[in-house]
């Protein structure tokens, strides 16, 4: 496990172990924000960025502060605090230095704090004993994988608006069934590379 190169982990996190389609993380915003492609792209970018950086910060905090002090059981509360603080920081930073980007990403940033994929990526990274480089690869790959999934879904949903769906299936149920097909398609990548 520990010898797997970061590139392999990155590719696996995007395709074979897609954080959304195999680990079901980030479903809430996936369902709520996959109506339009532009929205999906914006949210996907923001998630990728935040996930990569928080994976790094949380790695450092876990291995240099929590583990030596035997405070591992506090990891949940510390991780979520780091994520919330970081998102806030990024938001203020972008608002100050690039108002244009702020308007493009702005509304998605606060959403990210409650995106379980971010916290999930940090927890998986600890669970699987990745080293620092692997963690960065995993954080980035998981973010890209999430973005790919939500953008694909947004494209499908835009088409779906014109199809004739039975009444009880309208909205979320049909979205789940489409996600099921998407997940099956991604299973086709299985065997390409593998992490646990």
């Amino acid at each position, binding site marked *: 496990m520990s010898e797997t190169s970061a590139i392999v982990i990155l590719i696996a996190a995007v395709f074979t172990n897609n954080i959304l389609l195999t680990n*079901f993380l980030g*479903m809430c915003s996936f369902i709520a924000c996959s109506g339009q492609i532009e929205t999906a792209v914006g949210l996907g970018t923001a998630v990728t960025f935040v996930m990569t950086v928080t994976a790094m910060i949380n790695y450092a905090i876990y291995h240099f502060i929590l583990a030596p002090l035997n405070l591992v059981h506090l990891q949940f509360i510390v*991780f979520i605090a780091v994520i919330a603080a970081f998102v806030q920081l990024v938001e203020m930073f972008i608002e100050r230095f690039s108002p244009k980007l702020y308007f493009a990403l702005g509304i998605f940033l*606060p959403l990210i704090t409650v995106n*379980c994929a971010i916290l999930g990526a940090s927890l998986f990274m600890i669970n699987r004993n990745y080293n620092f480089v692997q963690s960065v690869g995993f954080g980035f790959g998981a973010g890209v994988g999430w973005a790919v999934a939500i953008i694909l879904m947004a494209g499908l949903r835009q088409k779906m608006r014109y199809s004739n769906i039975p009444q009880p299936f*309208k909205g979320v149920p049909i979205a789940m069934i489409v996600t099921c097909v998407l*997940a099956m398609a991604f299973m086709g990548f299985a065997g390409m590379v593998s992490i646990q």
Partner: protein
Amino acid sequence: MSDGGQQLCGGGTCKGLCGGKGFETLKDGAWTSNPLAIQVLGICSALAVTNRLENSLVMGAALIFVCVGSNLFVSLLRKHTPHRIRMIAEVAIIATFVILFDQFLKAFYWDMSKQLGPYVGLIITNCIVMGRAEAFALQNPPVLSIVDGFANGFGYAVALAVIGACRELFGSGEILGYKLLSATWYEPNQLMILAPGAFFTFGIVIAVFNAIKGPDEEESK
């Protein structure tokens, strides 16, 4: 916080319905606005842990515990929490209860803790808990908040158990280790245990729920 926004409107309709009565609150959380099937909150963990009924039950219990605990404390502190920092206060309270449950699992049910893995920790970002704290516990007295937390946790647990039972039954032909579909005529469909089965079952369950409840007033996109 569009998630927060959703929860607020979910809570808004609920508040109108409950009107302060315990039983109404209970019915509302467990059935009429079932967090999972109607409001579609907290689906991440709902999909991830339902490959077996046993896991679903433990997860349901965890959610009831965290929901009741966090609702109680958020409600007790509701007059002392400054409005601006209420989010972080709620997250801190929720995280505390999640840690308690996680430690409990690790101490007494190590195998289960191993199987659920990071999904126990992910209860913190489960929108239901946060949503109830934000929408209900902040405005209501402690006892009623406990009822509400229990009702929502219970509604979630029931929905989880249904999905978990379906997936385990069709995926491996048995429930909690009892063989129900004999291997002579039923070939277990492995797909139900894997990820696509989760999405599929969940979609069907919500569709059935919608069909029973009748046409929804809010038009889907």
